[in-house]
């Protein structure tokens, strides 16, 4: 599902942390993002959305996003958006005391 180019990492997080079957994971991800399940694998649709929601996205030489979140910040937003615990975010919050 194209990983960070689209929403593959988000769907697999729902599977891994909640044990959701694919159909349910796609439905939940689409619902949380406000898109259709078909949009989840569309790189164009997801690239802009991920930028707006600060969920992390790809960059390359001629398309840079220095204002985009760091991976840990992106995972923080992913955790909040999908409503799932992300281990590294939990560790970060514990380290920051928040």
């Amino acid at each position: 599902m194209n990983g960070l180019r689209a929403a593959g990492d988000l769907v697999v997080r729902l599977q891994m942390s909640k044990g959701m079957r694919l159909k349910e994971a796609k439905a939940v991800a689409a619902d949380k993002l406000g898109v259709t399940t078909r949009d989840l694998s569309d790189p164009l649709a997801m690239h802009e959305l991920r930028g707006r929601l600060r969920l992390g996205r790809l960059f390359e030489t001629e398309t840079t996003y220095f204002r985009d979140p760091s991976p840990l910040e992106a995972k923080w937003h992913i955790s909040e958006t999908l409503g799932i615990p992300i281990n590294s975010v939990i560790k970060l919050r514990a380290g920051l005391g928040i």
Partner: protein
Amino acid sequence: MAAEAGPLTIGKQTGVILVEPRIPTRMGDGSLTEMTRSEIESDLEEGTQAAVARGKVPPLTEDELDHLLDIFASTARFTGVDIGDEVVITKDGTGTPQLGSRVDALYAAEQVLGHDSCELFHNDYSYRAVKTVLPMEQQYMKEAQERLTIPVHYGAQPDLGRYSAPDGPCGNWSELLPAMKIDEARAAQEEAVEMAVEDMVFVAEGMWEAGADGINFDTAGAAGDGDFLATLKAVEALRAGHPDMGIMVGMAGEMVIGTHGQLEYGGQRLAGMRPLAQMRAVQTAGATIYGPAVNVNTSRSTAWNTARALTFVKPCMDEAKIPVHMNVGMGVGGVPMYGFSPVDAVTRCSRACVDILRLDGL
């Protein structure tokens, strides 16, 4: 499903000999060959029947075999699922040494290859080995979590054989069994199981503390039913202590070998378990993803191997309560047993698995 004509047909009116075109395809060892559409069709039928005989499972339907025929009789270099039918991919061992450090390789997998998830792993892919270098692996995991947005889980193999002499402290059941020392062989495996569980839980908890998104137990059952039991017991212990931990169990083969023969889990004997029973055990233990594996016969075609693999796994799909991520890679799931898998075969096998089984992932 009988072929309408053989490869050579003489036209009744014209006397012209009609030759069925030969289609490039692969054998299970990756070598390129050519088969007619009729021959591929025949191989698909034989493949599913081979699984029926060995696995005591229903064959693929005629529609499913027809669809597989369309996939494998195509001459395209590459194929794929329909738009909207994409699945996610989880990995065992991500990265390649040409890309710098191990974390550089994971980062490339995210940014360049578009992986949905990735796996940090040690080259000595065994929980027993990793136990001795755990702090270094924890540091790498910390770095990976800071550099990557996609999930990074940690994986290794239960590798029960590592606990037998001369590598380990237990008796060597591979030597005891042929010497007809059955009781001693069983005792050695039972002792190894407890040690393996302790090591797997220790490492998994250590990597979870370092920030891992999940843990993968790869090739569970590779050393037989003791190996599978150790995995299930480790999963059970981890689930009890960590309700949010993502846990994947990837199998070693389509049947658990009864090296011990009498081990049970949940009242079910592990020896001889096929994918459906394996899945039930993995679900009961508390895993979040189950990965069946069906080994490839290198003497048969990719079409034969794929039909056989799908037939074995299909019974899992209606009953699964957790995602099923079939192992589709070198030597499993129909993909040829070759270190650099040809993309024509990989895409055909992957698409076949998704289209027919409606998998949750690969």
